[in-house]
């Protein structure tokens, strides 16, 4: 079938709307767990409201989550992850984290998203023993980590590097997440070279977002952001040893467009991404909403695993009014945004923290991390068709 035939709408209009991301799935592919609210750092852009308090997750909360998760993980062909997030998950301590992990079956993958500052030899042995995959939050070279500091204002960079060195000493492969606060020319190359040297296998780049208690603006000139992504593609091509999430996904979409399979790129349904707070409360879709409340939406929770099962909570997401409003927002994206087939709809937290509600459409995050990402990759393909 030719491209022109494929793109014809039987009704005579343009291309039919993409069909993915319709409704919320009742079985997630991962859950986010908050072993403690405490973080030993106090990063300027952090969205977490309780990071100075040490509220630890009781083991019965983990056990309640493990019951359905062990079933989902055992299903043939599925891969299921528990992401220990925070706060800083290592601030919970090894003994408590081990107790929280213990109810989960061996089929379940465990991940920690950590600031790395607490990683030492005993932690590396712990990661090995429990087969925990490690993802480190670091924003580039020392000068780029000004936002990452202790509560007393001391830069965290040396501690982060010390933790990463421990991982490398133990031969533990790791991923990295990097927040970009100012997408200026030259930064993408600097960052990519840094992460090559750091030794991560997978890298995700997040343009800073205005959400939670972080109210810094994330509105950047469109061309600056697209230029950042285009430059990043160029840096990556020089040494593509790292799986660079944003570039891989953009190329995946572009390849699918060229193959006339673009409608197969998005998942069929939205992943509910349940975040289990330290107290067992469940927030769907956007972990950033956990710990907040709003006169109109309440505390954003959809229940508590100690009161009703996680599977039961996920079976009826529409019982949470803001989720229904969010799904309407995704449908609005589907019908109005030309990038929907690439993006799948703006995230709940970005809609709420930028628009004050969930059924709006385009956000600054959409522009920074989806629209201008794709445009930057296309601009690179247009301007620099061959590697040196």
């Amino acid at each position, binding site marked *: 079938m030719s491209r022109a035939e494929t793109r014809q709408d039987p009704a005579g209009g343009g291309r039919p709307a993409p069909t993915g991301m319709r409704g919320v799935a009742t079985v997630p592919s991962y859950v986010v767990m908050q072993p403690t609210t405490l973080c030993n750092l106090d990063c300027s852009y952090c969205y977490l409201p309780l990071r100075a308090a040490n509220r630890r997750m009781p083991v019965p909360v983990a056990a309640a989550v493990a019951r359905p998760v062990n079933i989902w993980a055992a299903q043939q062909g599925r891969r299921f992850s528990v992401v220990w997030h925070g706060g800083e998950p290592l601030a919970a301590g090894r003994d408590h984290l081990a107790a929280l992990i213990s109810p989960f079956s061996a089929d379940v993958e465990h991940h920690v998203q950590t600031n790395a500052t607490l990683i030492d030899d005993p932690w590396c042995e712990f990661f090995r023993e429990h087969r925990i995959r490690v993802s480190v939050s670091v924003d580039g070279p020392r000068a780029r980590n000004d936002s990452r500091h202790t509560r007393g204002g001391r830069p965290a960079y040396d501690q982060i590097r010390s933790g990463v060195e421990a991982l490398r000493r133990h031969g533990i492969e790791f991923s990295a997440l990097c927040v970009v606060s100012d997408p200026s020319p030259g930064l993408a190359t600097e960052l990519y070279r840094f992460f090559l040297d750091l030794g991560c296998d997978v890298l995700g780049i997040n343009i800073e977002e205005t959400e939670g208690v972080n109210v810094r603006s994330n509105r950047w000139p469109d061309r600056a952001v697209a230029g950042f992504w285009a430059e990043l593609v160029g840096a990556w091509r020089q040494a593509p040893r790292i799986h660079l999430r944003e570039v891989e996904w953009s*190329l995946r979409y572009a390849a699918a467009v060229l193959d006339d399979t673009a409608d197969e790129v998005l998942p069929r349904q939205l992943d509910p991404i349940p975040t289990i707070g330290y107290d067992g409360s469940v927030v769907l879709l956007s972990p*950033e909403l956990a710990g907040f409340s709003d006169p109109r939406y309440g505390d954003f929770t959809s229940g508590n695993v100690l009161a009703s099962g996680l599977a039961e909570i996920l079976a009826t997401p529409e019982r949470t009014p803001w989720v229904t409003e969010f799904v309407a927002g995704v449908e609005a994206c589907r019908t109005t945004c030309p990038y929907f087939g690439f993006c799948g709809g703006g995230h709940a937290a970005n809609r709420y923290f930028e628009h004050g509600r969930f059924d709006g459409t385009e956000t600054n995050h959409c522009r920074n991390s989806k629209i201008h990402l794709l445009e930057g990759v296309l601009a690179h393909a247009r301007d620099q068709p061959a590697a040196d």
Partner: protein
Amino acid sequence: MPETSRQRTEPVGAAPGATVAEAGGDDQVADRVYAVRDGLALLLAEAEQARRRRAEAAGADGAVCAWNHFENIPTFYNWNNRPR
């Protein structure tokens, strides 16, 4: 709460000053993909080669990707991009 008005966004490949909506529907996004398909073909070939090299270098528990379903990268690094 932040204001809710829609701000102008100017696709790089579109006419200067155009909003996303003014730049056309997803047909026009696809058209821009097609317009740079030669450059993309090189990029895609390099990316595939890079993935093969990463897969060859990785152990069973490596954090390295597989192409279609990204089976070896952290599942939470998916396109939902949550958490950060």
